[in-house]
C-alpha cells in the first residue's frame, strides 16, 4: 500500500508535460564523520559475553569498518566487568557472568580516540521462555509451498511483549556425485597434462552447514489481548531449498526486548527496506540508548540491550514433512561434463580439465570411455560441490547433532 501511494509521484512528474526530468545530483557528505555502531546484548546466560564495535561507512565502501582498541566496561551495582578485544572489533568479557534481575547495567565505551560513550541504565527484561518451536509444511498466500518454523511463547504476566529472534540453522548436506576417488593433477605441463585418480582421504560425502540469521526478526504482542505469541514465524524455507533435503536443525534464540529497543530496531528496519524510490516519507536519524559523553549531539547507532534469552532447537528430516516426495534439487544442477585434458598440437597446451582441477573447481565423477581428444577428456567431472560436500559445509558432525 505504502509503495503504491507513493507511486503517483512518478506519474506526477511524468505527466508534467513530459518536461519533467530526473537526474543525479551529488550531495556533499564529506563533513560527516562515520559514526560509532555498537552491538551489545547482554543476556541472562552465564557465559562470556561479546560486544562488537564498528563504524558506519559510505555507500561506496565495502562492509563495516571495525572499531579497535576501545576499552569497554559493563558497570552495575555488582561491580565492573571489563571487555577485551579478542579479534578486531570484537570484545569479550573477562569473566563469565549472567545478567541479574533488578540491576541497572551501564555500558561504558572509550574509543581509541578517547571519546566516551555511555548507555542508559538498562535492566534485564522479563523472563519468557519459548514454549514450543515447531516446523510445519505450509502453503502461503502466493501459493508457495515450504516449511515454516514457528515459535509459541507465552508470558502470563504480560510484561515481555517485545521479542527479537535470531536463529542458527544447521543442515546435513550429502554430495550427490560423491565418489571414492578424486582426480588430482600430477603434471600440469604440456605435453604431459597428467592426472591421476587417488582414493579420498577425508570425509566429503556428508557435511553440515550452519547459517545464522541476517535479518531482523521482530515480534510483539502489544496489539494482542495477552502476551502470547502463537505460530510466530521466525523462518520460512521454500520447498525447493536444498537445505531441507535430508536433516535440518534450527536453534532459535528468543530475546525479550524492552519497548524502546524494539521500537529502535523496528524503525531501522523500516527505513532500510523502503522499496519506493519516490518515497517522500520523512526519514531521519533515530537515537538509541547510547550517547556520547563528550558531545551529546554526536549520533551513535545501536542499542545496548540486557535481554532475557531462551532458546530451543528442533530437528526434522525431509520425510517427516514430505514423506516420499522427491527431495529438493541440489544447490547446483551437477551436470557432468568431460573437459579436454590435452589440446594437442598445434595448440600445444593442456585442456581446461587441468586448470579446473588446479583451481579446485570440479570433482571427478566417472570415466569417459569415449574421450581422449582435444574436444573431450577421459574423465567426467562436475561442479566441486557436487562431489565434495566440504565446499558447502564442514565434515565434522556438530556437537549438538542428533541423528
Amino acid at each position: 500500500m505504502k509503495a503504491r501511494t507513493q507511486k503517483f509521484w512518478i506519474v506526477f512528474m511524468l505527466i508534467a508535460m513530459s518536461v519533467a526530468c530526473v537526474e543525479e545530483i551529488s550531495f556533499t557528505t564529506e563533513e560527516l564523520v562515520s559514526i560509532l555502531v555498537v552491538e551489545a546484548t547482554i543476556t541472562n546466560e552465564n557465559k562470556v559475553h561479546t560486544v562488537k564495535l564498528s563504524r558506519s561507512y559510505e555507500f561506496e565502501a565495502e562492509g563495516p569498518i571495525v572499531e579497535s582498541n576501545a576499552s569497554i566496561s559493563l558497570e552495575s551495582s555488582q561491580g565492573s566487568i571489563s571487555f577485551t578485544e579478542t579479534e578486531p572489533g570484537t570484545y569479550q568479557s573477562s569473566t563469565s557472568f549472567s545478567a541479574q534481575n533488578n540491576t541497572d547495567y551501564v555500558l561504558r565505551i572509550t574509543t581509541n580516540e578517547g571519546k566516551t560513550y555511555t548507555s542508559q541504565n538498562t535492566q534485564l527484561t522479563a523472563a519468557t521462555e519459548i514454549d514450543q518451536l515447531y516446523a510445519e509444511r505450509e502453503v502461503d498466500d502466493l501459493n508457495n509451498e515450504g516449511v515454516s518454523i514457528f515459535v509459541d511463547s507465552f508470558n502470563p504476566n504480560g510484561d515481555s511483549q517485545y521479542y527479537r529472534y535470531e536463529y542458527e540453522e544447521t543442515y546435513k548436506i550429502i554430495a550427490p556425485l560423491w565418489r571414492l576417488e578424486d582426480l588430482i593433477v600430477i603434471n600440469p605441463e604440456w605435453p604431459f597434462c597428467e592426472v591421476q585418480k587417488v582414493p579420498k582421504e577425508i570425509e566429503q560425502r556428508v557435511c553440515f552447514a550452519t547459517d545464522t540469521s541476517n535479518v531482523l526478526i521482530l515480534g510483539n504482542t502489544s496489539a494482542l489481548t495477552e502476551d502470547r505469541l502463537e505460530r510466530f514465524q521466525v523462518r520460512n524455507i521454500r520447498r525447493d531449498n536444498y537445505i531441507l533435503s535430508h536433516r535440518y536443525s534450527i536453534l532459535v534464540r528468543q530475546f525479550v526486548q524492552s519497548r524502546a529497543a524494539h521500537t529502535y530496531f523496528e524503525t531501522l528496519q523500516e527505513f532500510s527496506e523502503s522499496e519506493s524510490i519516490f518515497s517522500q516519507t520523512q526519514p531521519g536519524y533515530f537515537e538509541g540508548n547510547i550517547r556520547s559523553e563528550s558531545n551529546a549531539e554526536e549520533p551513535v547507532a545501536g542499542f545496548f540491550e540486557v535481554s532475557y534469552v531462551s532458546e530451543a532447537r528442533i530437528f526434522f528430516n525431509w520425510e517427516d514433512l514430505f514423506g516420499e516426495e522427491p527431495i529438493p534439487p541440489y544447490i547446483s544442477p551437477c551436470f557432468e561434463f568431460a573437459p579436454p585434458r590435452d589440446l594437442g598440437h598445434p595448440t600445444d597446451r593442456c585442456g581446461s580439465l587441468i586448470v579446473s582441477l588446479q583451481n579446485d573447481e570440479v570433482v571427478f565423477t566417472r570415466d569417459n570411455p569415449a574421450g581422449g581428444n582435444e574436444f573431450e577428456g577421459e574423465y567426467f567431472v562436475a561442479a566441486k560441490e557436487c562431489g565434495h560436500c566440504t565446499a558447502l559445509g564442514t565434515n565434522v558432525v556438530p556437537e549438538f547433532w542428533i541423528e
Partner: protein
Amino acid sequence: MRRKVVKLLFIVLLSVFGGSSAWSQEGGLTVSFQETPMQEAMLQLENLSGKSFYFHDQWFGDSTVSASFTNKSLSEILDSLFQNTEFNHYLLDNSQLIILRNNIIYDVLPDGFFQKDSIVEVPVETIVSRSQPVFNATDKRREELPIPTLRIGKDDPNSNRSSFILTGTLTDEKGSPAADVTLFVKALGAGTTTDKSGKYRIELPKGNNLIETRSLTYANLKKRVIIYNDGNLDFELPENLEELETVFLEGSARKNVEDATAGVTKIDVKEIKTIPLVLGERDVLKVATTLPGITTAGEGSAGYNVRGGKEDQNLILLDEGVVYNPAHFFGIFSGINPFTTEDVEIYKGNIPAEYGGRLSSVIDISSKDANVEKFAGEGSIGPVTGSLTLEMPLAKGKSGVLLGGRTTYSNWILRSLDDESLQNSEASFYDVIVKFNQEINEKNDLKATGYYSRDAFSITSDSLFNYSNRMVSVQWDHKINDNNRASAILTNSRYQFGIEFDGESNTDFDLNYDISETGLKVRFNSVLNESHSLDYGIATKYYVSNPGEIDPINGSSIASLEIQQEKALESALFISDEFNVSDKLLLSAGFRFSIFTALGSREQNVYVEGLPKNEDSLVEVRSFGNNEAIETYTGPEFRLAARYLLMPDLSIKASFNSTYQFVHTLTNNTTISPIDTWKLSDLNIEPQRANQVSLGLYQNLKDNDYQLSLEGYYKRAQNILDFKTGASILLNENIETEVIQGEGKSYGIEFLARKTKGRLNGWLGYTYSRSFIKMDSEFSEETINNGEFFPSNFDKPHDFSLVANYKMTKRFSFSANFVYQTGRPVTVPVGNFVINNSEFVLYSDRNAFRIPDYYRLDLSFNVEGNHKIKKLAHSFWNISVYNVLGRNNPYSVFFVNEAGEIKALQSSIFAIPVPTITYNFKF
C-alpha cells in the same frame, strides 16, 4: 504617471465680488455686441475662441450687453463684460472656460496652506483678493467631469444633529457593483471604500460636502452633496478607458498605510491578468506566493506555508466556506477558478477576530457577484484546461447568478507519452462554482455559493485515486439601521479521497476517507460613534470525520477495517473594536474565545501522563456515548493591532496575534499530499496554538504611486504536530502513539515595494525568514535532532520575487516574473552500518541538508483586443514562457539503491522552458 504636476483648484464658496481672472490669452479677438443677450454673447465668444464654455443657461436671464472689442484677449473681453455682474470666469487647461456665479476660482494658495512644499503651477497673474477666502482643497484631475450638486434629505429645523449618514451603491455602466472604490471627502480627511456589492456608507457633516471617488477601473468622479438628513445616493461610474489595464486598484491604495491591520495581502484578480502563466492557467494563489511571507514547499506542491507555518495552518475560505484542499494535479494548479474570483485577501499577521481555527493565516477568497443588469460571459482556452464563466441576471437590477466551470483535457498528454504504462493512466480534474446574489430589498441581501472540485488519477492500471472538495455557503446580510448591520452565514464543506486498487493478486481494496464541517456564523457591526466601530458575533462548527475505511473488493483477502468516526463542535464568540484614538492613532482590539469539544460516540485510549503514549503507558480504554463530551479545550485569542501615522503617507503598525487550531493534518511526507488525513483534537491530541508579534513600516510615495512596506515578525507555536520517525498513519487506530507535539519558531523580515501605476508597474519582494521546529522530550523516541530547533521542510531563508509589467501600448504589454529561493532542507542518507548481520541505512539529522537553490524566470506577452464597446467579444491573448532559463529546479530529492550503491537523484517538474498560449474572451 500621467499627471506630473499637481494643479489645484480652489473654489470660494462665499459670495466674493471683484478680483480678476488669472489667465492670459495671446491671440486677440474682434467682436462687437449690440444689446446682445448675454447668453448669446457667450455662445459667440465660444465660437470665436474655439473654447468650450461652461455655464448655466438660466443664469444670464434677460441681461444684455453692448460693447465692441478689437484684438482683445478673451480674458479682457470677459472681464469687461462681467464688470459689475456677479459672474467670474476661469480658464481650465486652455480649452475649457468655466463661468461661475458668486464664486471665484483661485489658482494660487494663500500662505501657509501647505505645511510643506508642494508643486503648484505658477500663475501668470496673481489674484489679490480683498477678503480671505475659505478654501476647500480638492485634487483636480484632468479627466474629471463637471461636478453635479445633489441635495440629500430635507432640512429638519428641529434636528440638532451635526452629521448624517449617507449610504448608497456604486455601479458600473452595465449595472454591476463597483467594488473597492474609495469615496472620500478631502476637507474632512474621511473616506470609505465600497464593498463587494458596491455599497458604501459614510458619515458627513451637515451641509455642503464634496465627495470624490478614486478607482482604477472607473473614472474619478466628484459629487457635491448638500446633506440635511440621512439618505441614499446611488450612482454610476463610467469606465475609465484610459486606465483600463493599469495594474493596481487605487481604491485600496491608502489602506496600505491607514489600516490598523498589519500583514494583510490583497490580490485583485484584475491585477494578475498579465502575469506569466504556468501551462496557461491564471492562478490567484500562485500569484500570492510571489508576495512576501507566502511560499510553497516545492514547485507544483500543494499547500502554502505562511510565515513559517505548516500547510494545514491556513484557513482557506471561499465565500466564507472552508475549502480543504484547493489544488488540482497535486498542486500544479490551484482549485480556485480565476474567472469567478473577485479578490483574495490573505491575513498573515493580524487575523480579524471573526476568523479562527487555524494558526497561520486566513486566505479569504471572494467570488464575483453576478451582473444583475445584463448577460455577460468570459472564457479561456489554454493547452491544459478550458474554462467558461457566465453571468446571468435573474431579476433585472435585483438578482443574478454566476456560473463557472473548468475542466482539463490533459489526458491526451498522457496518451502521447512514450511510456507504455502511462498511456493507460489518466489524470483529470474539474471544478464548478455557482453563485447566486439577490438584493431582496434595501435592507436585505442574500448570497449563496456552491463549489465542487474533483481530481482523479491513475498511475498504473491497477489503482485509481480520487479526491474532491465540496462547499456550500449561504449568506444573508441585513441592515438593522444606519449604524447596525448583521450577517448570518451558513456553510457546509467536505473533503474526501479514495483509493481503489484492483490488481492481479487477491489484495484488491477500496479505501475511503472524508471529513465534513457544517458551520453557522452570525456577526454584527455597530458603529457606536465616530471613534468606535464594533464587530462581534458568534460562530459554531460541527465536524464529522471518517478517518479511514478499507474494504476488500472482488473477493480479496484484505480484512475490512474502519477507524472510528470522530465528531466535534468548535464554537467561538468574537468581538473587535476599531478605536480611532486620534487622527494619528488607530487601535484595533479583537478578542475571540474558542471552545472545542470532541464528541462521542468513541473509544479513547487513556495513557499515563508524562510518558510517551504507547502500549506500555496505556491505562484504560474509555468509552463515550453518542455526543458525549470527550474533552473540551478552550482558547482565548487576542488580536491586537495599532497604527500610528507618522506622516499622512507614512505609518508604523504593531500587532499581537494569538491563535488556536483544533484540526490537524496527519502527514509524514515531506510535502503535502492529497491523501493526508485531517485529525480532530481529542483526549490525546491537544490543539495547536501560536502567538505572533509583528512590527511594520508602511509608506506610500508620490500620490500612492509607490507603496513600500517593511514588516518584521516573530512567531512561536506550541503543540505543532509531527510524527515519530517512520510512523504509519493511514488506517492507524492508535494514531496518538505516533504523534509528537512540539514547538515551532519562525521569524522574518519582509520587504515589498509596489509600483501601482504607469506604464511600468509591478512589485518586488524580498523576504528573509526562518522557520524551525523543535521536538524535545525526555524520551528519545519523541525527540528529533537531539531536541534542538531544526529547520522545517519549508525553511527557505532567502526569497526574492520580482513581478513586472510593461505596457507598451494600450493593447500590448509585456510581463516578467523572477523568483529566487534558497533550496529547501532535506534529510539524506549518509552511510550504512551493520548490526546483528543486517545492514541499515544511516540518515543525517532531520533536514540537515538542502537541495540546490531555486530560481526561475517567466516571460509573457499580452495582446488585448481593441476596446470598442460595441464589439461582440473582447479578446485577450497571453503568450507565456515558463522557466525561460530552463533551470533544472529540483522538486524532490530521493535515493535509489543501484547495485548496492545508493545514488541521490533529483526530479524536476519543469526542467525546460514551457511555452503556452492562452486565449481569453469576454462578452
